[in-house]
């Protein structure tokens, strides 16, 4: 029993059965038991028809099984239930990315990040899509904003450094990579990229002297 600030009893547990089924579906998905997971999501959807969660779960199964049509259908159902569901936008983006429709994937990742700027999967997806498309400017802004909130996230910092490097912003790339190595001294990828950036800086005196 929980009392609200007004002293009245607050009802708890109205979504408990849904939560158990959704959690169970997620567990079985992670364990690769997709049939049981699907069954759980379907039962969860009956309990909470307006909740996008079970549809997202089915979408993830589609992605895991390589069934992009099933995944797309499920993520779109999730968005029908709740157009602001960031996970569904990210899922849809992954479907497009798998289909090598990078421009669509890019847009979907952006929609996800507008709703949830901390969605790491979307950030990294956006990074990959942008590499495929050769466009960096919008992505860099998102990564920088994310790092302002999560300064210790080495994986995102490394992505940002590689985008700086590809965009020719070598001094910023060098700073970012040094920060990555301070966090993860064993990171071979960061060390290799730092070597490359420093070689390019040495070969380009104008760049090297830019503040």
């Amino acid at each position: 029993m929980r009392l609200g600030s007004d002293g009245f009893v607050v009802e708890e547990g109205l979504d408990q059965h849904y939560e158990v089924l959704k959690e169970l579906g997620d567990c079985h998905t992670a364990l690769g038991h997709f049939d049981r997971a699907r069954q759980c999501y379907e039962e969860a959807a009956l309990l909470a028809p307006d909740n996008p969660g079970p549809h997202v779960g089915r979408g993830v199964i589609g992605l895991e099984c390589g069934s992009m049509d099933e995944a797309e259908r499920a993520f779109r159902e999730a968005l029908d239930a709740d157009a602001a569901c960031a996970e569904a936008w990210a899922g849809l983006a992954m479907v497009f990315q798998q289909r090598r429709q990078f421009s669509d994937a890019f847009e979907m990742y952006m929609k996800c990040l507008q709703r949830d700027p901390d969605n790491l999967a979307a950030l990294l997806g956006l990074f990959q899509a942008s590499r495929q498309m050769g466009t960096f400017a919008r992505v860099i802004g998102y990564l920088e904003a994310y790092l302002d909130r999560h300064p210790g996230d080495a994986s995102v910092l490394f992505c940002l450094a590689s985008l700086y490097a590809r965009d020719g912003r070598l001094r910023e790339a060098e700073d970012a990579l040094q920060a990555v190595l301070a966090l993860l001294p064993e990171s071979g990828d960061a060390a290799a990229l730092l070597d490359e950036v420093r070689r390019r800086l040495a070969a380009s005196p104008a760049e090297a002297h830019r503040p």
Partner: protein
Amino acid sequence: MTATPSHRGPLVTVLVPTFNRRRYLAEALRSLAGQTYANFEAVVVNDGGEPVADVVAALADPRFTLIERRDNRGKAASLNEGLARARGSYVAYLDDDDLYYPAHLAALLDALQAGGGCGAAYTDLYKVHCRVRPDGSRQVLGKIVNVSRDFDRFLICHFNHVLHVSLMHRRDLLDRTGPYNERLRVLVDWDMTRRLAFFTDFRHVPRVTGEYYAPVGPSDRLSYRQRLQRQAYLEQVLAVRTTRPAKPWPKMPDLAIILLAGRMDARAAGVLRQALLWTFMPYRVYLPLAAEDASRLRTDAPVVAVAPVAAGAGRAECLDAALGAADADFAAVVPPGVAPGLLWVEDALHAAVTSGAADRTAFLIRCAAGAPPWADADWPPVVLRLDALRRARAAAAGAPLAHALRAAGIAVRPPCDGERALQFDRLLQQAQAMEAEGNWAQAAWRYERLRARWANHRWMDERAARALFRAGGRDRQALELVRRLNRAQPTVDTLLLEAKLLRRGGAGDEAAALLERAEQILSGKALP
């Protein structure tokens, strides 16, 4: 494995009042028929609803008796009619839309026969939130243990934390409490549990042994519909709170509130109203009044008594007149000059009841906030033992109260925090406020402290584990706590919490097994 039913032991009478719930009644009765403790008689009382004879007959069980009544007279009348037929040494209750798990009666009987002098025992129940489909079937949304509260005599006078379906008590206690109050339309159960608390202690068995159903949205329950009529509901609340069974009360303190009004004016009427509204423990208000003022008194409250005094009598005479009439364990002296705002005697009463030095201490009553606590230093508003007050009056006859108390060696002080009534609930609310603000670690610490000081072990452990889980970085501690709970008896909530912790720790397969078990409980395929 199904336990073999036990036919040995005392006879238990289970009362099953029913009204227009044929659909659920069959399931309720089957849950009773399947008890591991078999020596019971069930008295089903149809309170003028649709016929249920076929439902009872379908059980083909001679332990079940049906009383069919054509007129609808309410739950209290049904229970009284059932009790008139009862032969058992113990009485238990089952509502027509609720369920017992197979060991329900056995668990209660074990608790009652374990010694310690408890004449009543109760278990925990799942509150089953459900959506009722058009065909009447129930879609389960959650099964939670909404109330798992150790017995608290002060609390039972405020709030019914003993669900009737979870209760079993000695039948002979009803000779002391009297029958169910048939004038009540709601709170029938609370009225009886409160009255039982005058005569016995209750033993709490923190184990889930059944289910009661709570449909979402507007309910067909009488209690729900009646609560919508606020004024009528409050009158019923007051009727319960002012019920005083015949004395002696071996377990309940009685309080005499001595209102030294002087004149029966608007101010005195305001203070009297506050006393009636805000006193939850059993009490009687004694009003020392001259005949002229007594004639101006307008109240039908059964707990107000006039102590006649001569016109122009002083405070000391008024107090002595009230003392002459009062029959109680404790006295609350409310002098004139108390503002007719909040008058909260419960903290001082609780301090007096629980203090080891009640003979030598008078506890100050909390009066309206912001106003001086009392107008006259010679006449402090206090609660103390009635015999101590009489001793003080004898020590300094005719003197103001403060002088008399001093003369009798009785100290006057406010109750400290730990002595106040419902302190557990106050601290619990603070912990919940911490949760609402996201201070999970602090809330967990508070739950641990509450557990250490006020028991309610299972409930507090569960809240602490949940808070530790939300706090982050304390998963090991949370897991230890919730595992202990699940070893004792898993509930849906504790299984879900352990699963979340395991999943976060990377043990997905173990988490899935726990969640499957939770799902089985929710779908009725397994018992907790």
